[in-house]
């Protein structure tokens, strides 16, 4: 165990002194923030483009009501009065974008149809949005029919079908956050350590390439070396997670207004989620370290190795079906496949209010047994593979080592 810790310490020190690793350490969170910022830049610019100039030719004195309705709806429209006639409008619109002319005529008030002229370029749904003016116009129509204010209010009120929540809405929102925040946090930790852990395989194959494995194995056992790597890269993954969180969290809280969410983070579930995340790491790290020992070079990786490297991405396939139906067949299948168990379980537990304890127990039991089996297999592969210099192992050879 002492040697294991020495190897772990060395892997941490070696990487923390390595420029490539350090750049990656800070670049990863910065890239994530970059996507946020770029995304929001696009949002802003599209808003600006779509400001609509709405000119109103008002014959019936409705302009103040129209302006109020539009500003209450929060549309990005600039309303101005005009006295241009309908004939003159067409030529006026030819050279413009996002411009519309609305004619509130007395005839329209009687017939219920108001002419609108628009430039060719208009934001989508403009006409649908314009429908919001129905209410003030309807009020004027009804007033002309001699209805009292109360009668008008009843008649002009829209008919709504409102779903009644079983519990207090605010409370349900709160409990949703309570579940989502720790789940998302654990998911982030898992992705972060698993992806950092992918460097294990490079570390193992690099030792083959640099031919240092034999020198190391004259001082320690292959098991010490392998375990040291797994622990070392776990710590590196945690370092990556902490640095990412320190950089990303303030930005995310500001961007998504999550000030209140932080208090939900320290839920008791978090410990359980992190346990699942760590189990996921152990499984994948065993696979990476074993496969790394079979490869002399990343660039010459065969199909088999490439396929294995894709395993951590497998849970992404389940996101759609699981979100649609967190208790459905796909969710259950994902829970029982060890490679997808951690990802799918985290997702399901975050969504589901009632946890399926039996499925959780079976899923975790399968995962634990798989970790044990894969660690054993990785140990066998690592022991032989790490000393096979200059050549990638074939699946046939790997199978032979496992059986040996």
């Amino acid at each position, binding site marked *: 165990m002492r040697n294991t810790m020495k190897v772990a310490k060395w892997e941490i020190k070696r990487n923390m002194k390595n420029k490539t690793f350090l750049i990656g350490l800070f670049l990863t969170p910065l890239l994530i923030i970059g996507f946020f910022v770029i995304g929001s830049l696009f949002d802003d610019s599209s808003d600006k483009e779509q400001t609509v100039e709405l000119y109103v030719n008002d014959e019936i004195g409705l302009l103040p009501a129209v302006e109020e309705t539009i500003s209450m709806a929060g549309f990005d429209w600039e309303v101005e009065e005009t006295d241009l006639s309908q004939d003159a409008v067409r030529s006026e619109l030819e050279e413009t974008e996002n411009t519309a002319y609305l004619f509130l005529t007395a005839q329209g008030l009687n017939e219920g149809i108001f002419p609108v002229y628009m430039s060719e370029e208009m934001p989508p749904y403009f006409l649908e949005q314009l429908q919001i003016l129905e209410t003030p116009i309807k009020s004027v129509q009804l007033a002309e029919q001699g209805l009292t204010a109360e009668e008008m209010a009843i008649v002009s009120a829209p008919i709504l079908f409102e779903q009644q929540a079983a519990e207090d809405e605010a409370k349900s929102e709160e409990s949703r956050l309570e579940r989502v925040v720790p789940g998302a946090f654990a998911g982030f930790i898992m992705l972060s350590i698993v992806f950092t852990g992918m460097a294990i395989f490079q570390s193992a194959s690099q030792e083959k390439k*640099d031919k240092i494995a034999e020198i190391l194995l004259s001082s320690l056992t292959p098991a010490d070396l392998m375990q040291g790597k797994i622990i070392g890269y776990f710590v590196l993954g945690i370092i990556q997670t902490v640095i990412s969180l320190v950089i990303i969290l303030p930005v995310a809280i500001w961007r998504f207004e999550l000030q209140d969410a932080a208090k939900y983070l320290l839920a008791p579930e978090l410990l359980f989620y992190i346990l699942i995340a760590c189990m996921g790491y152990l499984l994948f790290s065993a696979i990476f370290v074993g496969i790394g020992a079979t490869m002399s070079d990343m660039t010459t990786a065969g199909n088999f190795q490439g396929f294995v490297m894709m395993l951590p991405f497998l849970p992404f396939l389940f996101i759609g079906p699981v979100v649609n139906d967190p208790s459905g067949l796909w969710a259950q299948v994902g829970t029982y496949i060890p490679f997808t168990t951690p990802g799918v379980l985290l997702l399901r537990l975050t969504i589901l209010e009632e946890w399926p304890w039996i499925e959780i127990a079976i899923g975790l039991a399968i995962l634990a047994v798989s970790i044990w089996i894969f660690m054993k297999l990785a140990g066998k592969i690592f022991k032989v593979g790490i000393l096979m210099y200059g050549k990638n192992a074939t699946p046939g050879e790997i199978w032979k080592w496992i059986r040996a």
Partner: protein
Amino acid sequence: MDVMLTVEGLEKSFKDKKVLKNISFEVRKGEIMAILGPNGAGKSTTIRNIMGIMYPDKGTITFHHYNGKGIPRNKIGFLPEERGLYKNVNVMDILLYLADLKDYPLDKARERALMYLKKFDLEGKDKVSVEELSKGMGQKVQFIASILHEPEFLILDEPFSGLDPVSQEMFKEEIRNLANNGTAILLSSHQMNLVEEMCDRLFMMQQGQKVIYGSLDEVKRKYANFKCTIHGKNDAARLERIDQVRRIEQQGDASVLYLEKDVEPLSWIKQLPDDLVIEELKLNRISLHEIFIDIATNKNLMKEGELNA
């Protein structure tokens, strides 16, 4: 002399091929013991079995003066044939890491590392990244790594390969110093002239089997028969009729006559036929190099004298 390591009846197979057959030898304190043989003879496999990197199918490996279980890794220094270092770390870091793995105190390791770097003309390179070193410099760093923790037993697999003559001399001197200070050294090499100069005893193997085992003096006495090199145009059939000649090799006008073991040099020269064309004649003992080549090419030059000293 005090025995440090005993290897007895070592056997190892890969698939169905037996690569080590009944290998037995011992290494003593303060001696340089050479393990020789052509490529594929099983030298590195033997060493890997000693180091516990591989496990023998049969046989025992005993480290004397060690009561614990397994291999006293901390007391062994090892320079493997296939060697390298981490590329993107600095020299001192890797030396200290390897010393730490041997449980050697770090402050002492740092002191010794600086001393050896200076000795091997690498002063001031301790902060340099390994990838900036030349191949020879890298080999020196690896050698330092193998002796930094003051091992009682040192295994050097082809330590001289790829070194220039100056560095070779440095290594030779240091290896000799270590042996004089009591380190038991097991050295594998192809460079016979170096082995001949340095080793006290040797174990030569071929196809996984022992061929010669004994002290250098004994081996030379028993194996290094005389050979006579004659420059001059002579018919092979004529040369074959000369007494006590076991084998003849001809290349151009030069003929090498390998003589029998108990030849008396002076009387043998006297009985050479008068009609022999001699422009130049040389009579000397077969070198270790020739014995090695002989075994490697399977000529079995000195068949009669299977030695077991």
